[in-house]
């Protein structure tokens, strides 16, 4: 079974984010980066399927040079090889333009299954995978918790709202977007890290893939959200003082104590 896992490198979850001077993006020079969390679960699912059914796991990642670090980590966990669509500035690519590059990069791969996270932690469009499926003419299902392979089709557990789930049967080849928390993530072993050094990362540029398509939607400006609700925040003094102030409010103003 040939499995492609599309991953993205994003600022680490606990990053303190600041908007840059002209409001076009965050100040990203001093941030730490990591694999987008739902993509880490997609990778884990891909590796587990390979262990059960054999085959190959190919990592696909679009991003600047620094994304190579996240790709190496995926290879160290057990992916076999990688495709890196390398571009310093992908800000002109909307989700459709990005998915077009990815579809082109996968043209000769003919995977049986494509997995990716349900959304990215940075833009959070939650669409790249689904768009990729439509472009490649593949059936898709989203927000998937688990995958069971039955010959030429798969049975997946799809999350619905309010604690409900649904099983869906899908013929292969197919694309799935994975939910976080579906299984326990593995760590790279020392042996894995060593092996990753000799694994192939094929670098492609947008130019190799037909270029970045014109935008259908344009991100104009980013900014910190305005507070619409007036919250009373106690942030000065010691924890004890703050706690005492809060308790007084809860008792005499909100009357909930």
């Amino acid at each position, binding site marked *: 079974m040939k499995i492609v896992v599309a991953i993205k490198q994003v600022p680490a*979850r606990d990053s303190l*984010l600041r*908007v840059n001077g002209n409001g076009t993006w965050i100040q990203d020079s001093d941030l730490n980066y990591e694999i987008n969390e739902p993509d880490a679960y997609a990778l884990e699912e891909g590796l587990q399927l390979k262990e059960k059914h054999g085959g190959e796991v190919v990592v696909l990642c679009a991003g600047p040079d620094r994304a190579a670090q996240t790709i190496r980590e995926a290879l160290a966990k057990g992916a076999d090889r990688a495709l890196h669509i390398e571009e310093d500035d992908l800000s002109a690519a909307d*989700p*459709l333009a990005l*998915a077009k590059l990815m579809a082109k990069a996968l043209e000769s791969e003919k995977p049986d299954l494509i997995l990716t996270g349900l959304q990215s*932690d940075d*833009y*959070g*469009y*939650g*669409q790249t995978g*689904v*768009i990729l499926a*439509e472009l490649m003419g593949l059936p898709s*299902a*989203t*927000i998937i918790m688990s995958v069971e392979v039955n010959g030429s089709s798969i049975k997946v557990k799809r999350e*619905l709202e*309010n*604690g*409900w*789930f*649904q099983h*869906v*049967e*899908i*013929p292969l080849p197919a694309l799935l977007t994975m939910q*976080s*928390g579906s299984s326990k993530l593995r760590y790279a072993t020392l042996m894995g890290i060593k092996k990753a050094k000799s694994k192939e990362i094929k670098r492609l540029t947008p130019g190799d893939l037909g270029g970045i398509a*014109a*935008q*259908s*939607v*344009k*991100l*104009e*400006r*980013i*900014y*910190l*959200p305005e*507070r*619409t*609700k007036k*919250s009373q*925040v*106690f*942030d000065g003094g010691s*924890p*004890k003082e703050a*706690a*005492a102030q*809060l*308790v007084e*409010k*809860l008792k005499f103003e*909100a009357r*909930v*104590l």
Partner: protein
Amino acid sequence: MSVLVIMEHGASGWNRMSFETLAAGQQIARELGVPCEAAVAAAPPDELADKQLAKAWLVEHPLLEKYTPDAYVLAFRQLIDKTKPTLVLLPHTYQVRDFAPRLATALSRVLVSDVVGHRIEGGQLVCVRQLFQGKINADIRFASAAPNLASMQAGAFRADKVEAGTAPVEKFTPQIEAAQIRTKPLDVFRESARGVDLNSAEVIVAVGRGIKEADNLPVVEQLAQALGAEMAASRPICDSGWMPMERQVGSSGQTVAPKMYVAVGISGAIQHLVGMKGSKTIVAINKDAEAPIFEVADYGIVGDLFQVVPALVEEIKKAKG
């Protein structure tokens, strides 16, 4: 030239977000000076007849009775080709996330997903959506010709603002062949009977990623005890198995509205906020003053929860005597 609102109706009735999006559609159509239409697949007739709409489309086909992304894309693409809307609005539900990006791609467009606000500038719609789990907002403008598509986040508009009136109801039967539907929907189920009904709790103390390790949970449990509260958690805590899934609050867990909700170490991603923002009094404790949880909090303490929570437990005990 119109705004088309695609609503959602399933086995358990209307998805409540549909009417928030309908209110958005009516408002934005008025602001743009165009008529508003609504459409729904496989719904009982006439439920939209008493809303202020230029048209209510009942999209009917036996292959739409059980949701599949393939059938929905085919059906709504045909309706859009027929009605030629300027703007298509959808509620940002799990089902919409499943099919709407495909629908937009089939139309060579990009859906602006998860919209929390809007404004009209020079006769054009500017959508506000969240980045980085709600920590940053972004203004997004459409750069392509009609139809443009957007999905609206829960709570961005109010369902009780839907304008009543009359709507001519028309049936639309799309062309769909069984062979065009590739996925096969099977059983819909719940994991296990719920042992905990957080809805009956008057006070809830919820814990998030800020707790760092399962071993630290007793810090927050003491606060719950002091307040006589039920414990709840954000999704990552339940995913990690530190708390049972049945105590998860948010879009994939329970929706609660207690007298007091205390969020400890929860940054407040929108998926969590939709599950608790109806609470009467919201208290947030978080180390990041910019965390979106403070957007909905009535009271907050910015600080290290491992210092703040024990201090708070002590003060509550004193106050309760």
